């Protein structure tokens, strides 16, 4: 286990920041890009996880476990979100026979 810990010293934190930001941007792109609501949800998960990774990296570099606890909570929120989101997707499929995000346009005046 000692070898692994040296990894933190070998890799600068900037790399993790860059990686997370890249993943976040890709996720965001997907959210804007895709019309399939399930894929949009998946891209949201990706964004969540990029944040998780960043927090974990900070926590590791800070030597402070509370960052990891936060990741834990984010996971919980993500799980709850997915449960509700997917049930909404099922509902939508059942009602409008499609999962196209552009069909969800009832939410207006």
């Amino acid at each position, binding site marked *: 286990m000692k070898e692994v810990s040296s990894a933190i010293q070998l890799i600068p934190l900037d790399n993790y920041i860059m990686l997370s930001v890249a993943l976040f941007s890709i996720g*965001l792109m997907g959210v*804007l890009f895709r*019309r399939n609501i399930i894929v949009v949800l998946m891209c949201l998960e990706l964004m969540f996880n990029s944040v998780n990774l960043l927090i974990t990296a900070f926590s590791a570099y800070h030597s402070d476990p509370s960052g990891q606890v936060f990741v834990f909570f984010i996971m919980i929120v993500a799980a709850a979100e997915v449960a509700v989101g997917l049930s909404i997707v099922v509902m939508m499929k059942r009602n409008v026979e499609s999962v196209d*995000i*552009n069909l969800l*346009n009832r*939410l*207006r005046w």
Partner: protein
Amino acid sequence: MVEQVPYINFAWLVPALPLLGFLITGLAYKRLKHNQAGIIASTMVVLSFLVSAALFFVLQSSGKDSATVTLFNWIVIGNMNIPFALLIDHLSLTMMLIITGVGALIHIYSIGYMHGDDRVNSFFAQMNLFTFSMLLLVMGANYLVLFIGWEGVGLCSYLLIGFWFKNPAFNYAARKAFVMNRIGDLGFILGIILLFLTFKSVTFSEVFSHAAKLQPGAPVITLITLFLLIGAVGKSAQIPLFTWLPDAMAGPTPVSALIHAATMVTAGIYMIARSSILYNLAPITLNVIIVIGLATALLAAIIGLKQNDIKKVLAYSTVSQLGYMFIALGLGAYSTAVFHVTTHAFFKALLFLGAGSVIHAMGGEQDIRKMGGLRKKMPYTYFTFLAGTLAISGIPPFSGFFSKDLILAKAYEHNILIYILALGGALITCFYMFRLLYLVFSGEQRLPGVHPHESPRVMTIPLVILSILAVFGGFLNIPSLLGGDSKFTTFLQCAVISKVPEEISRYTEIALIVISLILLIRVIIFVYWRYVKKALIPAGETETKPFFSRLVYNKFYIDEIYIALFEKHFGYLSDFFFHKIENTVLDPVVDEIGAATSRFGTMVRRLQPGNMSFYLFAMVAGILLFIVFILII
């Protein structure tokens, strides 16, 4: 910090048990079968009584005068800290024992009395809530906790007077009681606020220790005590706020017994006795109290002479007795007042319960002109009622004698005029009580078609116990004249600071007793001659009566005067506010605000096309702008 008395922390059980009973019977009122609610409620009160008794012995054996039990910090704002605390001292213990003891008996009695009523579960829930509130009232260690109890009993009183809410008259009575009490409460709140402003605390001990440093007769103290007095007047049904109490007889009889005779109405007495230190500093207020008490005692007694409703008679007698207590308070003989509260609780509860038993037997009939000849049919009720009557009339050695005689003695010492008037009131009391007794129990039955019968055991046993208390309750405080040692007075001395020395000269006292005894016996003989020998029946509604008699029969038209004086004018005022101010000024303004918001909303909603992609883009753009903004700054 006072060193704690062992086991005293269990004091919270005393109010908590009735509260538990209230929660059980109140929340599960749909599931409980006919008698279960009553049994649960009664058990809770009996347990509460046992705990109170245990507390009594604990406090006695510890040798301490008082103990404070802080349950939790209630209001903490800045450096103001009002704990939710219970004060256990001799005064509150006395009251606790009365409330739980008499309350338990009345609860048990109610099982029989309320049997078959379809809202019996609600009844017991409210009774328990009342017991809880009353205990909170007497156990509170500061004016705020006391005030909670004060308001709680007011609420329960309202609920229970209007218990049979299908009758609009009863509802009216309940409302009247509530409004009257509110007037008193307003004064009480003002008094508490003033107290807080003056002493920066509402806790009894701190207030009293601060007050002791003030000059006697200081205006602040007078003002405070007057405000508090207004509260006490409202709660204890004194002139001018007494008219609600006779109307409160609309509630079930056990309610009348518990709330409007034994406990709640004595809250004012208790409060003043509790604040005795403050009142000792305000001689003006004391004089006001004497005047009010005297006037009330006499007025109510006179009205009681001509009443024909069995419960109304008792109600006016209650008002009158409360007047006596006020006299005692005004004389500065607080412990005497509390002693009278105690004995009054016994015999008045007894009388009310007896009356309830009679009403129960008569199938709901309350007019004494239609009763009569119940002695044979209801022996238990008769004898217990007789005991109560003797007690209230002040015949030795019944309990009323000891307490009333003490008050009279004090009055004599203070001012002979007061004494004469008070004695007159006592004689009138004796008159109408025996009138009631004879009309109800002697002679022949005057209402055809009813077959009275003795009440069930569950009702007579409380009656018997109460009658024992009413007979022997006076021995708690045998004056030294009769070889006693005034135990009760001594007991209360540490909690209640009396103004006057409690002893007067022995010969005067004997003389006073003899005088009052002779007069009382003459009155009784007169009543016997008038209502048993001549078998006079009071005139009915329609018959013409002499002026004074009519005046008394109609309660001096006080209700009507109140209506003419206050109600009408308030009605005009509210009409004016409603039509002129609200309809023409306030309403349009409010409407315009709503309409403007709505118009604005119509404009704004165009921003919402309903397209998710658009929203997402907008959101991302917003975040981007935000970050860029932060970066630039």
